[in-house]
């Protein structure tokens, strides 16, 4: 049993999805899906502890040996991400039954859970696999499920958002497919570890350069790096709130993971940063993303859309960490991936509660809402502080390491940019706090009650995680440090 953990991680939700179809009843499907999510959470914790104790876990699918068969490989880099995906999924599913009551018609509830489980299986699969083509397959599984989930949104604009994402996502995935094909043609292998060994022999060919370029652009499309982010704001704004919670906290992080895996492990540090002008490209786009998306976020009335733009800005920080091309930089990136998952999870869950009570999350209708929904807005406040990077929250920890990585490289202006970006996030979070806490309740404020416990409990678990990992940092920092050291192990 224990040696099958890495494949069980993916197989459990994948098999659970069709079983959900047989259950038919919405309540039953919900209970089953939540149970499955918690089961995968237990599996991912077991995997993480095994990786920490004994090093990378490799699994041969169907008993076929590694370079020929598909290998599942879990190491310090992807084990924490597996935990994040299944944890957020479990918590969001806990809240989903209540949250979708008003947002999705009753007869579609079962399909909602099926698509959710498939999306989760896809995201976990991308993360766990050690095979380049398998990445593409799981990417498409999760993407197709995501398009469905977004299209379930109440507003008809959700359909347009879903279509837009489908076109952008398919182009991105096809680019990745081209990259993988060109790599295969040069090396004759699809296994990542094997690719890493064989690519250096042929690295000065046009084909490998083309492969790398296609792969990076394709992945950037998926992780919504500015200026390839255009699909994201609409998709996040019009999808059912609980779907936005799940996607914002996990989907882009998985794409970032794929990018890190290919840049550092498969192509290698040397190729990516010395033969290829990756550093300049990522640095420029990262900084541009932080500024443009933060400024646009300030002018949004729809809060889901505001946080969606903030997500684009946060992806900018994550990419900035990669562009430092240093061990501290990549460690900051990994930390920010996990921490951003926690804060965006908490923030979007708070908005899901607002949408549940009010039907929309328009700032103009939220005057004095904090007196009506004190626990929800307190969660939003703490999540927002974490997003800004106030001490004692997780946001502070990752910004701290980002700034110190910038200073380590001697890049003073970049450190200033990071701090300036945080100031912009102060502006857009403060707008909400001001309206919700300091404006008197006006006539346009609907007469609502506090959100039900089913939403408050998962929300506050995430909020407390934001505070806990902001104070007790040894686990997250330790894991990211080890993963960064692994990635740079070949260099030292």
């Amino acid at each position, binding site marked *: 049993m224990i040696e099958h953990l890495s494949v069980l991680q993916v197989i459990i939700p994948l098999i659970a999805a069709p079983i959900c179809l047989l259950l038919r009843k919405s309540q039953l499907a919900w209970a089953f899906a939540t149970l499955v999510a918690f089961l995968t959470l237990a599996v991912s914790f077991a995997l993480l502890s095994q990786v920490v104790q004994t090093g990378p876990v490799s699994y041969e699918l169907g008993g076929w040996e590694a370079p020929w068969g598909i290998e599942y490989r879990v190491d310090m880099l992807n084990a924490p991400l597996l935990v994040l995906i299944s944890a957020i999924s479990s918590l969001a599913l806990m809240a989903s039954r209540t949250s979708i009551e008003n947002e999705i018609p009753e007869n579609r509830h079962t399909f909602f859970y099926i698509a959710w489980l498939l999306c989760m299986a896809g995201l976990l699969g991308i993360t766990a696999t050690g095979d380049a083509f398998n990445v593409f397959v799981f990417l498409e599984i999760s993407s197709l499920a995501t398009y469905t989930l977004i299209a379930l949104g109440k507003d008809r*604009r959700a*359909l347009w958002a879903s279509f837009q994402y489908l*076109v952008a996502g*398919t182009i991105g995935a096809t680019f990745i*497919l081209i990259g993988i*094909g060109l790599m*295969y043609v040069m090396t004759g292998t699809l296994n990542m570890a094997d690719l890493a060994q064989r690519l250096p022999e042929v690295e000065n060919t046009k084909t490998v350069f083309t492969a790398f370029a296609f792969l990076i652009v394709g992945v950037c499309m998926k992780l919504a790096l500015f200026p390839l982010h255009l699909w994201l704001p609409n998709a996040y704004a019009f999808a059912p709130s609980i779907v936005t919670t799940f996607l914002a906290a996990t989907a882009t992080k998985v794409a970032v993971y794929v990018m890190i895996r290919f840049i550092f492990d498969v192509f290698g540090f040397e190729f990516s940063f010395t033969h290829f002008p990756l550093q300049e490209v990522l640095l420029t786009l990262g900084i541009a993303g932080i500024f443009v998306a933060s400024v646009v976020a300030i002018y949004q009335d729809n809060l889901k859309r505001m946080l969606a733009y903030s997500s684009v800005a946060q992806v900018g920080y994550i990419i900035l960490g990669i562009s430092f091309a240093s061990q501290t930089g990549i460690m900051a990136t990994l930390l920010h991936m996990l921490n951003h998952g926690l804060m965006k999870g908490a923030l979007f869950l708070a908005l899901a509660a607002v949408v549940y009570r009010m039907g929309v999350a328009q700032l103009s209708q939220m005057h004095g809402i904090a007196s009506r929904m004190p626990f929800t807005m307190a969660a939003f406040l703490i999540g927002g502080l974490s997003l800004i990077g106030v001490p004692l929250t997780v946001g502070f920890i990752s910004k701290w390491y980002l700034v110190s990585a910038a200073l380590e490289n001697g890049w003073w202006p970049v450190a200033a940019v990071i701090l300036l970006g945080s100031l912009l996030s102060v502006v857009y979070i403060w707008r909400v706090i001001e309206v919700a806490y300091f404006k008197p309740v006006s006539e346009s404020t609907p007469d609502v009650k506090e959100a039900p416990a089913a939403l408050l409990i998962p929300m506050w678990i995430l909020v407390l995680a934001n505070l806990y990992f902001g104070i007790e940092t040894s686990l997250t920092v330790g894991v990211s440090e080890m993963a960064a050291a692994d990635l740079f192990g070949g260099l030292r």
Partner: protein
Amino acid sequence: MEFLGLFNYWVVIVLMMIGFYIVICSNNLIKKLIGLTIFQTSVFIMYISMGKITGGTAPVLADGITLYSNPLTHVLILTAIVVGIATTALGLAIVVRIHESYGTVEEDEIHAKDKQA
């Protein structure tokens, strides 16, 4: 001679650009999906061409067969074709629902209706 030898790859590039152009420039959602399919198909042709060896046959274990094409790329692309069909089907399903709620499948008309509302 080299141009003819790379004939398949020229076709791939031409098809890819045609598909990409349709996706970007077409106003009609169905046409966009057609463009997307052409775009994906070009990559299928690329994979199939990569595995083909001149004079090679299918990889069957029989007497007299020594030269055969690489079956792996062909199998890989079978998977990608299935994914492509699923994407097209889902895309069409979304377009049907867009037509139900907007009464049109033209991009500019959809935007105009959203602005009115």
